[in-house]
């Protein structure tokens, strides 16, 4: 060990140790691990069907992450649904519980720049989540290889790693949102509820609201232009949901044949002449969802920037 670790890494180390000693972390990871292994089980039993149905069996391995038998959602859907819970669960009391325990003012009385505290908390949570996600993803890969005997191509491996990284960005967004609430609200319970409310809103109610909007603005005239307008409005509203953005990004990563994310109505001349069902290279796939990816990272950064700004200007008194 280095003799004089920078205070930043001292805080990170303590935070990581705290997570690893807490029941909360094991419960959250336990939930995600169990559900993902459940989905892996159905994927393994369903993959032969998928292989039979599919003309192309390249990239069959990626199906492990996306196939579901209709009863249990796929790995991808589980991460999309439960990832936010992990982020909120680890972040909701980051700042306010330290404030309530009176440890924040003690830490800030040490020669430590104030932003180290919030940065270190973010980095520590992300480290812990990252390790958990990669362990989980690679576990699925490993079990997939053992059970199916499929060979994992390099391209598939890169796609899986990219997918796991994207999941991390997605969870980082929710983590930052939770940290923001922990800065804004003095009570951890309020912060947790606010985070969960937003999570539920986007994962359950938002699609219902979109359906309502769709009904309301359904075009009465049957022209291509009207349908296009309708489709693009809907898509525009859907993309306000981080979960939708994430699903678009992962779709391009895990389905190499997906070559555009909007409806076929919008196909450009160039796209019309593309050969359907031709897998793209990983870079091409990422290019397809590049705007979504940028938006996700931007959302994460915005949340972080607001919490950073608010935290830096807050007056830290003991326990109030």
């Amino acid at each position, binding site marked *: *060990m280095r*003799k*004089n*670790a920078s*205070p930043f890494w*001292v*805080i990170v180390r*303590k935070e990581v140790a705290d997570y690893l*000693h807490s029941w909360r972390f094991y419960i959250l990871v336990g939930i995600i691990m169990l559900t993902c292994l459940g989905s892996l089980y159905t994927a393994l039993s369903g993959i032969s069907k998928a292989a039979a149905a599919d003309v192309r069996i390249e990239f069959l391995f990626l199906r492990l992450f996306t196939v579901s038998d209709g009863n249990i959602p796929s790995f991808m859907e589980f991460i999309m649904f439960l990832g936010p819970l992990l982020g909120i669960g680890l972040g909701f009391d980051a700042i306010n519980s*330290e404030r309530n*325990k*009176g*440890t*924040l*003012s*003690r*830490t*800030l*009385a*040490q*020669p*430590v*720049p104030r932003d180290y505290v919030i940065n270190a908390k973010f980095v520590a949570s992300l480290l812990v989540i990252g390790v958990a996600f990669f362990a989980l993803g690679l576990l699925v890969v490993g079990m997939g290889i053992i059970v199916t005997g499929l060979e994992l191509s390099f391209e598939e491996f890169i796609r899986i790693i990219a997918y796991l990284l994207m999941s991390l960005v997605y969870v980082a967004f929710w983590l930052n949102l939770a940290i923001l609430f922990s800065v804004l609200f003095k009570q951890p319970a309020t912060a947790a509820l606010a985070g969960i409310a937003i999570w539920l809103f986007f994962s359950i109610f938002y699609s219902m609201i979109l359906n309502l909007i769709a009904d309301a603005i359904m075009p009465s005239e049957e022209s291509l232009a009207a349908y296009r307008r309708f489709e693009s409005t809907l898509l525009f509203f859907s993309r306000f949901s981080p979960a939708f953005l994430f699903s678009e990004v992962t779709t391009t990563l895990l389905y190499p044949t997906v070559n555009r994310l909007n409806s076929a109505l919008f196909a450009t001349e160039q796209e019309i002449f593309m050969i359907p069902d031709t897998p793209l290279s990983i870079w091409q796939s990422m290019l397809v969802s590049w705007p979504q990816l940028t938006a996700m990272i931007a959302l994460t950064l915005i949340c972080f920037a607001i919490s950073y700004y608010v935290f830096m200007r807050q*007056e*830290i*008194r*003991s*326990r109030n």
Partner: protein
Amino acid sequence: MTSTMMADPVITLTGLTKRYGELTAVDHLNLTIHRGEIFGLLGPNGAGKSTTILMMLGLTEPTEGTANVCGIDPTRQPILVKRKVGYLPDDVGFYEDMNAVENLMYTARLNGIPDDQGRREADRLLELVGLSDAKHKRVGTYSRGMRQRLGLADVLIKRPEVIILDEPTLGLDPEGIKELMELIRQLSRQEGITVLLSSHQLHQVQEVCDRVGLFVKGKLLAQGDVNALAQQLFPDEKVKIRFSLSDTPEQLMQQIRELPDAVDLEYDRNADEWVLQANTDLSSDIASLVVGHNVRLYSLKQEKFGLDEIYLRYFQGSEAS
């Protein structure tokens, strides 16, 4: 900076002001604290003591005026100040599921102290504050007094030049306060540390302070030792002599009343004592009069000058919290 002379100012506040909207929490405060002294910033709750301390540490910015701590402007260089100043917030919090040594080690690491040195230092300080026996217990199990003592050790681990203690006696019983104040005095003398402590418990705290400042509604009303304080606050105040007697023959009381410089003689029913207000100390005159009348003198004391008046006028009603 290197001089250790008494006149060496460590903390200088000039026109320090903090406003929260309409409310002026600290109002043009001027204060100088010298190296090695124990200064008590005394005032009722809500007087602006904590705000003043936060400004000295750069934890909040002054609206006007400047602070200078160890030759550093805390608003501009808070990190440098925090390297030299130990701060014990009121109601200090520790990580409850870590033990005392782990908590101190965390502070030591944040201060860039190498682990082996930090551990030695933690052991030494825990011994000093009398927590050696409990040092491997979770801090969650500690009593209020133990936490405050751990807080002292936590503040000292970075070997500060100055320690600032915000309401260190809050929530302690009188015995605990006495012990803690003794400990603070002993540590200050032993390690040559300047101490600034704030409190609303005038009586308990002023005894260990070299100087105190009376801080009310954002203003420093008076400073010095307690006598100086009283003289500044109540220049016309009389001397009070309390005594109790086995018998009170009317002739004796009349003689006492008629002593030169005596102003007023009253009977204090609650304490079962007589109280003589006078312009000078008449204790010895009372004693000789009493002996002459063959009455037994149970007690005779000159009341500490003005402390109760200060307390009654500025502090009462706020000590309960």
